[in-house]
């Protein structure tokens, strides 16, 4: 055991200050989450209930095992867009009859559950999680189809939804569609492409063309039930494998389907004998300063999320601006890379590249804890080969095949975001703390760079530089970049899988590691050419 020591003093004024700042951000996050939970608002929720129907989260609660945890993903999807927060879809990872599944549920209280561009992004992300982690996918369907005014952004990429379903099936990953209501036109291919289907009596409507379209196309008079009712599909077309008498019965049937998948998880579950961290999770609220310019020691975070606060550091004296080392989290071995001083120098980059290769040799998943302002710039560093060394780190992280988990604790700027396995580097899961910020660079730096460039341009043209205008533009740019680097904004664009309470980090990562172990964990044996 190498138990990390702590310097955190919960009674210290700076701790209290950091904590107060974090609690403010958590309250703001709760308010945004509340929007997602509210769905289409009281009026549409009431109308839905009056029809005797369950809300999407009620359906999920009935589907998953009693008292089991449920990790909702991308709850802030569409935040900052013209569409409601949550994007009319609930997705997450839940346990059904002991089997971890990716579950999606349309929210019919939000514009009839119609898919907008963010709904599509969110659904595709859920499919990706199912495929990467070999998790059965259960879709709880009730959607009016595509949001027609935004069809240009949905129609062409949207085909991937159906492609994914059959690819999952081909990969041996079971897919289940439970249809509670409309699932028409393109939506009809959700049950159509799934391994298992359940349709709810007198509720499910699954057809390519409804009565008006049929009438227009062929002149035939037909009603909903004969075109796409559950009874018809169960008795006549054969599209319905199971005929559910009501919503609860449909969820019961879905549970029976999963129970009969005979799903075997190749990896272990969380270890019941794992020791909890030695330090209180509550203290995670007081570690990240409100001002990200002030560095903090990520070992204080590691000490509060890993088993027994037990962390064996790799090369602690070399490249000290990046802490690397080995730990376990709910019993799962992990290699951790955590920014310690913000900036990545050549030594840190080379250390990271070596560490990532070691983890791959041992088939150990990696956890990236972000608080970086990026790779060091300047004459000495450029001449010292910072590009080559940063490239080595990015090469290693790009070609590493062990599962990666990323948590944005503070800053995640520039190429540092890439080297620390940012979104484009396809970590299996990426979460942000409310304190995180991510952009090409810090807002002040970015505004300053723009100002210098403008000043140079004016000087080159021999024009006088308008300092007042410059100040105004800098302030505006700074404000815009600040807003666009905040977690809710990035989460709204599906650049993470959710913004989490720092105190939930250990639980969230435990759930993710457990989900990840449904697929083999195998390290890479080859990389791109390392530029030495």
């Amino acid at each position, binding site marked *: 055991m190498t138990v990390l020591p702590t310097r955190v003093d919960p009674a210290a004024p700076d701790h209290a200050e950091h904590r107060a700042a974090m609690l403010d951000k958590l309250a703001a996050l709760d308010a945004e989450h509340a929007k997602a939970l509210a769905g289409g608002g009281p009026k549409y929720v009431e109308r839905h209930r009056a029809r005797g129907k369950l809300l999407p989260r009620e359906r999920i609660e009935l589907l998953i095992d*009693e*008292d089991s*945890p449920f990790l*909702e993903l991308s709850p802030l999807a569409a935040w900052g867009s013209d569409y409601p927060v949550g994007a009319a879809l609930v997705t997450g990872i839940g346990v059904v009859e002991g089997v971890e599944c990716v579950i999606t549920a349309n929210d019919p209280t939000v514009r009839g559950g119609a898919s907008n561009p963010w709904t599509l992004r969110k659904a595709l992300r859920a499919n990706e999680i199912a495929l990467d982690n070999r998790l059965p996918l259960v879709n709880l369907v009730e959607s009016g189809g595509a949001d027609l005014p935004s069809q240009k952004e949905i129609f062409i990429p949207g085909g991937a939804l159906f492609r994914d379903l059959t690819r999952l099936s081909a990969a041996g990953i079971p897919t289940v569609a439970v249809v509670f209501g409309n699932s028409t036109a393109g939506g009809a291919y959700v049950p159509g492409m799934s391994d298992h289907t359940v349709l709810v009596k007198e509720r499910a409507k699954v057809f390519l063309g409804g009565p008006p379209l049929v009438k227009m196309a062929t002149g035939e008079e037909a009603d909903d039930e004969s075109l796409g009712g559950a009874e018809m599909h169960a008795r006549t077309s054969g599209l319905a494998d199971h005929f559910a008498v009501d919503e609860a019965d449909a969820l*019961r049937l879905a549970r029976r389907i999963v129970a009969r998948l005979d799903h075997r998880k190749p990896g272990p579950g969380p270890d019941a004998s794992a020791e909890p961290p030695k330090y209180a999770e509550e203290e995670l609220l007081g570690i990240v300063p409100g001002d990200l310019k002030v560095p903090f020691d990520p070992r204080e975070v590691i000490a509060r999320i890993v088993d027994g606060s037990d962390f064996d550091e790799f090369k602690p004296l070399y490249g000290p601006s990046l802490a690397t080392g080995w730990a376990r989290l709910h*019993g799962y071995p992990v290699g951790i890379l955590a920014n310690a001083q913000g900036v990545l120098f050549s030594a840190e980059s080379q250390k990271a590249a070596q560490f990532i290769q070691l983890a791959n040799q041992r088939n150990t998943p990696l956890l990236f804890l972000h608080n970086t302002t990026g790779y060091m710039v300047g004459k000495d560093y450029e001449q010292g080969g910072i590009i080559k060394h940063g490239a080595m780190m990015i090469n290693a992280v790009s070609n590493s095949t062990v599962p990666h988990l990323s948590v944005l604790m503070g800053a995640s700027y520039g190429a540092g975001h890439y080297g620390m396995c940012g979104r484009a580097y396809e970590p299996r899961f990426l979460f942000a703390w409310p304190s995180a910020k991510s952009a090409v660079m810090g807002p002040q730096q970015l505004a300053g760079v723009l100002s210098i460039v403008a000043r140079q341009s004016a000087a080159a043209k021999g024009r006088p530089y308008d300092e007042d205008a410059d100040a105004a533009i800098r302030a505006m740019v700074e404000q815009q970049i600040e807003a666009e680097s905040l977690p809710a904004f990035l989460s709204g664009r599906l650049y993470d899988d959710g913004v989490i*309470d720092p105190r939930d980090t250990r639980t969230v990562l435990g759930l993710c590691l457990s989900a990840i172990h449904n697929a083999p964990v195998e390290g890479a044996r080859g990389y791109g050419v390392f530029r030495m």
Partner: protein
Amino acid sequence: MITNLLVANRGEIARRVFRTCRALGVATTAVHSDPDAGAPHVREADAAVRLPGAAPAETYLRGDLIVRAALDAGADAVHPGYGFLSEDAGFAQAVLDAGLVWVGPPPAAICAMGSKTAAKRLMAQAGVPVLDALAQPTEADLPLLVKAAAGGGGRGMRVVRSLAELPGEIEAAKAEAAKAFGSDEVFCERYLPTGRHVEVQLMADAHGTVWAVGDRDCSLQRRHQKVIEEAPAPGLPDAVRTALHGAAVAAARAIGYVGAGTAEFLLAEDGRFHFLEMNTRLQVEHPVTEAVTGLDLVALQLAVAEGEKLSAAPPPTNGCAIEARLYAEDPAHDHRPATGTLHRFELTVPHQEFDGRGLRLDSGVESGGTITPHYDAMLAKVIAWAPTRAAAARRLADAVARARLHGPTTNRELLVRALRHPAFLEGRLHTGFLAEHAADLTAPDDKGAARAALAAALADAAERRTPLPSGWRNLPSQPQVKRYRTSDGGESQVRYRLTRQGLQADGHPDTELVEHTPESVALRHGTIRRTYRVARYGTEVFVETSDGTTALTAVPRFADPTAQAEPGALLAPMPGTVSRVAAAVGDAVTAGQPLLFLEAMKMEHRVVAPADGTLVELLATPGRQVELGTLLAVVKPSQEV
């Protein structure tokens, strides 16, 4: 000398007699019906003989088979226990005719007391006060009690409060009596609603000695069956006690009685008493007398049967003893019998001796056994002795309350509440006690039930717990919901979440979860910490606290769509036997019309049409054994026909 005793009975009394045999060195032979093949009394006997079938008429009432069994097994004596053939003079004679020792009174004495009307005449002649059988009851005689002459155990007994009801009740009593006792002779006497049931234990030898071995009060009754008994009868003036003992001895002498018997009296508030009947056998409640006298009445029965002499006088009584009869029945539903698996039956009893100065348990059941509808629903008798009555009541209530009893509904709660009731502790006893205080004794404890359901849900959550937090949500939208049916038919819904701040449960704002495992949940209500022990058997859940046990049934999350009963379906309200059918398929029926009758636990229950309509299905034929919830008939309401 008796060397091998056959007990022609089952359950606790068979085990009770065997215990004495073991102490005396007498070998034991049991008999058993098919459902009792695995019963404790069978296992504990040296030998056991099967009586094929289940119904008493095929088994424990078959004197011929039992005599044959005794001869085959090498028994040289037969003890009848109580009930069944214990007061059957023909059986006693058959035992004697087979050359076996009969552990009971002479057949003639049984005969003399067999008819209550004849016994009344005999007793009146001997100078014992009796309540006259009324040939022509008048308004002044009301209320009346209609009784079967050959009856016992409350069967065929009815209270009548208006003369208009009388002819109907007599007819009904006659039908019940004919069925139960083979004789439809019934009679009427005055009913004393506030009278006490006081009885005198008799023991007589064949040499002319008759003991009055103390008295008992058995006033706490339901359906004319005793529930709580005690010795000595409290609060009797010495003169009354002496007179009762004298009358009992006179009654025994009048019929040349030998063996153990009991003279029962009805004692009015003014101290006057009347002879009710004489039971020519060992009584269920004999242990209270044993506890206060230190006698082993069964050993005395055997000694007397062997021709031994009693000493001149019985030992004096010492202290107080109270017995509670634990029945598998539901006091909240007219004491209807309950059946099923008795998963657990544990009662801490420090002493087993018959002179036990403390607690005694006489039980016929054990953990894992099954309570069938075939026989009496009494599970056990718990007897407490203490120097004072109040101390005995306290000790008994506590023992019964703390018994681990997981299985069919029982009258345990009623017993505990009765034993702790101020009127009981003040000795204000009368045969209407349980009815008078029914509200106090059976009122549901809603708060207790809600907390028990919460504990059950949390134990279940602990059982399902993984290393990750139970029921964790990053976006909580609703609580975990678990539903439990309570024994009174209600439903308790538990809505809770386990959060970083702890338990949040609807309706329990001041309750904190201290710890939980699948077997135990500790909650803090305000400042009070309480521990709930939780035992689960499939969907059956039993939650125990020091206040008692709450039985719950977990409601499945999903209804089985195939198991939903049609409206108008009539399900058996209790396990029993279809005694008669009063309608046929296709009949038009009116709401409330009896369609069939179900006999269970000595009572005939009517199953009535729920609405006007047509009887479209009838699945009952006389003699069919049905379990609780069996579909019996379907009535299609007329507006739907």
